[in-house]
């Protein structure tokens, strides 16, 4: 710590920081643009000028840029010094010289850092009387809108996009007052993290192109703290709603998980909620029925001999409600046996406490990384951004040795140039992280396991030379041998492990200990059970056709007779439902996911879903008391906490999840936490065309949040922060005001509870015998799955913007294998009963083919490939 003097008063500040960072952490409103807690200082905008004095006798002082000046012991500054105030005012005027002042028609208006800073500096009259420069805007794809006239040349966009996220196609062009931030030509931004530009840009140059289609000002949106449902990482998000439609997702800062950034799947996947494929009403054999009818139907059918199939994309609560309804022995996990075994293996490893499960923050801080089997940018995209920071960790030590403060971003980058710490990647197919890897290995899945069990000495050396080692592995190649080998490698290297699991609750579902979908499919096929006459199946938020081969699912659904399906979007399984119930999405429900890190996190209802849509756990637990003698297991429960209580009683392994968020009865000074900003407008008028009566806001018995702008005014605990907003700080930069130290964790701690910690115990894990080496076959190929950030995940595929970016299915072969088949790129090939065009991918090993975009096939699998 360092004592610094601000306006003659002494404060304890972090001496490792610059003065801007320190002043913001101390709560001072010092305006800035080019600085960002994740990006450091470059001194471009000159907005954070303060007066610095040599000592107490110095009354003259000199202007310094706070962001470029260390908060060293005894530093004396004045923010209020008239010269500094005048300078900052003039800087904003300069920044605004060419700005179009189009706030009323700008999507950023109302949450614009430029607006906030302009007001903060007191600049209110435009003296510049000459013509403003104007630009032609570019088409940057369906995710990010471009309006360059608003640009203030702070360089944050390129520093984030290129320097931080490793993008190559967004650059600064030209110079003087006409610097242009864009691509060399129109086109879709290539980075899978492009959406963060929307939050990084301090004004409306880069805005959310999906929000634009259903635009609403921040102050008119209703928010809730939520968790991304589009992969297993559990990034924290603030989804926002108005008029019963989900309008956008912005980042919800979680120091331990996503920090300041999301991936594009996470930011834009939300649009599936508004999809025309949404199931909005209960139907019986295709006919709409009332909720009451649906509930009595459900009750009737559920009285029979019922089997329940859960889902890794449904909450713990919904899965538990189904399990409770049908009985533990007749509850199945709804994932293939292969995936089931794989998840169980990863779960066991984490539960044993032998290895530490790395959070995304830990990944970012790792200084040597070994990736086994995972195409991280496509299977756990946000983790790829963390890996990009991890390779900087070792070189950063060199910068420290040169006494360059780490916040001095430019100096650090000039000193480090392209130096990177150790990163080794072993996958069957090239990944977008290869460009920053020390070395890459293109191997078949079994060979990846063999590789991990017998790492080359240079890799062992490099890993041992590091302080915070990390092994990343996961389920995407369905290779249990890889997972076992990864755990063994992590143990022998004394590394942390980061497992990648595909869905938001894959780990939670696995912890419930149910049997796999294959077991359910077999159970019905089995004569004995058939004689026991299973006559009904309840499928929870799960398209079985993505989980198992078509004929098996067909046979199964045909055999059981009564098919009850709860889901959000119409799919092949819902098409088979006798009774179809509209299930609330993550945005319309409360629940708990356990991320692949092992972090239990609660997500909350953003809004009450319109019409008959309700949370699956509510459908599965009709509020009415049951007639005695019913086959159902229990009476109804009071609220979510009650359900969680039962869940924990039933499965004590889940005991920690209670602490994932405060209970429904939690109040702050007796008040609930508002989901709507203070300035939320039109509450009494929004639905006036339906009724002129002021509708009472819906009651929320499941959470301490209110569907209102009224309520607690203080900062809620992290799991209950619906949106970031603070007096004078209307933009997302207001996160600063929720942190004790800017850039560090939220006041009061990060969201989520870690279910597993390393305990130093646990037996030496037996990695088993290494699998035999991969041998290419004469007339068959090993077909491995290829994943894509846009398209491989079930729900986000239905988001309008992401659907545009999702690649069409293809089968990939290297050029030699393609030649063996006398095929060229684009030729239609048939394998495993599907016909897809060929793509040449030189990175694939010989004898291995990659298949993208055909869910439901048990991959990897050997198959002949025929040219049609």
């Amino acid at each position, binding site marked *: 710590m360092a004592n610094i003097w601000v306006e003659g008063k002494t404060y304890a500040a972090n001496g490792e920081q610059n003065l801007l960072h320190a002043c913001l952490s101390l709560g001072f409103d010092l305006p800035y643009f080019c600085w960002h807690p994740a990006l450091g200082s470059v001194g*471009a905008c*000159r907005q954070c000028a303060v007066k610095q004095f040599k000592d107490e006798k110095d009354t003259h002082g000199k202007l310094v840029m706070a962001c470029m000046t260390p908060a060293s012991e005894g530093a004396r500054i004045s923010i209020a010094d008239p010269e500094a105030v005048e300078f900052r005012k003039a800087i904003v005027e300069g920044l605004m010289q060419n700005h179009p002042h189009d706030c009323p028609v700008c999507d950023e208006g109302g949450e614009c850092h430029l607006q906030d800073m302009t007001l903060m500096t007191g600049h209110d009259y435009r003296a510049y009387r000459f013509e403003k420069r104007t630009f032609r805007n570019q088409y940057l794809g369906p995710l990010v809108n471009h309006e360059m006239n608003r640009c203030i040349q702070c360089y944050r966009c390129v520093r984030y996009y290129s320097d931080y996220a490793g993008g190559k196609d967004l650059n600064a062009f030209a*110079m003087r007052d006409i610097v242009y931030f864009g691509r060399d030509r129109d086109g879709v931004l290539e980075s899978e993290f492009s959406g963060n530009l929307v939050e990084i840009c301090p004004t409306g140059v880069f805005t959310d192109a999906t929000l634009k289609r259903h635009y609403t000002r921040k102050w008119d949106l209703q928010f809730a703290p939520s968790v991304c449902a589009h992969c297993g990482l559990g990034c924290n998000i603030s989804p926002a709603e108005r008029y019963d439609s989900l309008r956008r997702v912005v980042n919800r800062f979680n120091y331990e998980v996503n920090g300041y950034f999301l991936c594009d799947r996470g930011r834009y996947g939300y649009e599936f909620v508004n999809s025309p494929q949404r199931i909005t009403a209960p139907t019986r054999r295709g006919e709409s029925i009332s909720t009451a009818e649906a509930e009595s139907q459900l009750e009737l059918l559920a009285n029979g001999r019922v089997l329940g199939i859960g889902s890794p994309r449904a909450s713990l609560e919904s899965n538990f409600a189904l399990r409770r309804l049908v009985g533990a022995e007749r509850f199945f996990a709804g994932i293939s046996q292969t995936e089931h075994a794989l998840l169980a293996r990863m779960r066991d490893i984490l539960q044993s406490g032998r290895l530490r499960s790395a959070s995304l923050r830990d990944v970012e801080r790792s200084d040597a990384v070994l990736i086994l089997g995972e195409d991280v940018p496509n299977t756990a995209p946000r983790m790829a951004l963390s890996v990009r920071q991890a390779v900087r960790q070792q070189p950063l030590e060199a910068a420290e040795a040169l006494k360059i403060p780490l916040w001095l971003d430019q100096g650090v980058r000039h000193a480090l140039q392209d130096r990177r710490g150790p990163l080794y990647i072993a996958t069957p197919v090239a990944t977008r992280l290869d460009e920053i890897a020390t070395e890459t290995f293109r191997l078949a899945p079994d060979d990846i396991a063999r590789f991990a069990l017998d790492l080359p000495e240079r890799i062992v050396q490099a890993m041992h030379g590091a302080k915070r080692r990390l092994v990343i592995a996961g389920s995407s190649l369905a290779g249990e041998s890889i997972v076992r080998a990864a755990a063994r490698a992590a143990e022998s290297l004394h590394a942390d492990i980061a497992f990648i699991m595909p869905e938001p609750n894959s780990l939670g579902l696995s912890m419930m200990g149910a049997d796999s979908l294959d077991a359910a499919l077999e159970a019905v096929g089995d004569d004995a059970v058939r004689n026991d006459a299973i006559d009904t199946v309840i499928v929870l938020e799960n398209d079985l056709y993505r989980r198992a081969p078509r004929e098996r699912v067909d046979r199964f659904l045909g055999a059981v007779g009564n098919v009850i399906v709860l889901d959000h979007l119409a799919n092949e399984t819902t098409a088979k439902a006798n009774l179809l119930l509209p299930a609330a999405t993550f945005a319309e429900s409360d629940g708990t996911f356990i991320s692949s890190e092992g972090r239990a996190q609660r997500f909350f209802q953003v809004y009450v879903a319109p019409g008959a849509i309700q949370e699956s756990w509510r459908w599965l637990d009709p509020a009415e008391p049951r007639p005695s003698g019913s086959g159902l297991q229990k009476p109804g429960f009071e609220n979510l906490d009650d359900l969680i209580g039962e869940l924990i009683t039933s499965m004590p392994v889940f005991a920690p999840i209670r602490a994932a968020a405060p209970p429904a009865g939690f109040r702050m000074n007796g008040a609930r936490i508002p989901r709507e900003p203070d300035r939320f407008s039109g509450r009494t008028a929004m639905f006036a065309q339906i009724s002129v009566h002021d509708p009472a806001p819906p009651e929320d018995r499941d959470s301490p949040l209110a569907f209102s702008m009224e309520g607690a005014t203080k900062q809620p605990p992290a799991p209950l922060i619906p949106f970031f907003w603070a007096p004078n700080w209307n933009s997302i930069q207001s996160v600063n005001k929720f942190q004790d130290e800017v850039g560090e964790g939220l006041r009061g701690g990060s969201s989520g509870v870690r279910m597993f910690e390393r305990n130093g115990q646990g037996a030496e894990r037996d990695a088993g015998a290494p699998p035999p080496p991969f041998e290419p076959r004469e007339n068959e190929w090993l077909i491995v799955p290829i994943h894509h950030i846009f398209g491989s995940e079930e729900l986000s595929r239905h988001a309008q913007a992401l659907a545009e970016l999702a690649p069409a299915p293809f089968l990939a072969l290297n050029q030699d294998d393609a030649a063996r088949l006398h095929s060229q790129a684009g030729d239609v090939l048939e394998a495993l009963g599907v016909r897809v065009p060929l793509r040449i991918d030189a990175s694939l090993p010989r004898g291995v083919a990659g298949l993208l975009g055909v869910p439901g096939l048990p991959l990897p699998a050997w198959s002949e490939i025929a040219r049609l």
Partner: protein
Amino acid sequence: MTETPLTKNIRPGAPPFDIGDYERAGGYEGLRKALTMTPQQVIAEVKASNLRGRGGAGFPTGLKWSFVPLGKDAPHPKYLICNADEMEPGTFKDRLLMEADPHQLVEGVAIASYAIEADVAFIFVRGEYILSGERLTRAIAEAYEHRYLGRDILGSGYSLEMYVHMSAGRYMCGDETGLLNALEGKRANPRWKPPFPPVVGLFGKPTIVNNVETLCCVPHILSHGANWFRDLSRTGDGGTKLYGASGKVKRPGLWELPMGTPIREILYEYAGGMRDGVEFRGLLPGGASTDFLTIEHLDVPMDFTEVQKAGSRMGTGTMIVLDDKTCPVGMTWNLTQFFARESCGWCVPCWSGLAWCERILRAMEEGHGESGDIEKLEFHAKMMGPGNTFCALAPGAAEPLQSAIKYFREDFESHIRDKHCAWRT
């Protein structure tokens, strides 16, 4: 021994010396001498010579070199860069040295490289200086053939690779750190210091950037000694200086004179005084980015210290002369237009302030000046002051602007009052 070491081999109108002529004239003796010394001894000799950087800032050259880590543990490769991106308006001294005696520069670069144990040297040449580039390229090739460059130079064990790099052509490339970025293939934005280039320079390695004229002095310091070099000067700063004059003088040109030669002597004895029919009004002593001096300053000796005392900077030592038939507002507009155009667009006071000033000055010239405009210009000049901006471009741009208003305020006022530029017909 010559009193004009830098130009002694230069014969106007004739091609430059090839390596044979250059050697016969005593060339490469400085390098030979240096190779018999330790790098520390070379640095000490240059320090003792009081050589100050001729690029404009006047930083002591030997001192700069001494910041480079030497010896076994020093990071490698290290770089020596000759800044030959001469783009300061009114400045054309380095061009003469490169076109007319390229071996002198090659030798200077080689000695400087040896002094800092550099592995690679670049001569970063202004893009438009095509002839300089060609002649240097040829000179370097000859030097390689004669083992003054390459592996194991003259059997000394010291190796150096030298390259000519033609600039893509922006004023900012001539800034020490903008040059480093440009050479790395990046935008020519300036870098923050610290870390300083001698520690973290090109590609993150220790790097020295010196001006052409500075490096051309070095062979002579080594050949003839620091004392001799110091004594060439009339003041404390060592050596001779290439002084130039442009504007409506009788004989615009370039002369090598003792450091500290008074302005009056340069202007009247060498440049021949003002052309007939025009009166002297003022001058920018060292290129476009220095403050105006006027008639009262004519006896100021042209060296780094004395010109600074007079309220300006010697800069490159090539003066631009303003006469009474030229509009000072128009001249300021012209210069500001240049600086506004060449602003890299990094920091706000520069890119926005210069653009604004340029538009005000144009408006004045075109008869659209408004009351308050002068105050606005003065305010921007203050905003662009040292420390307020990221690099020295904007403070340099502010110098002619603020001093033009100071010395020619009445002319600015008349432009606004009369809604007309009196120099325009």
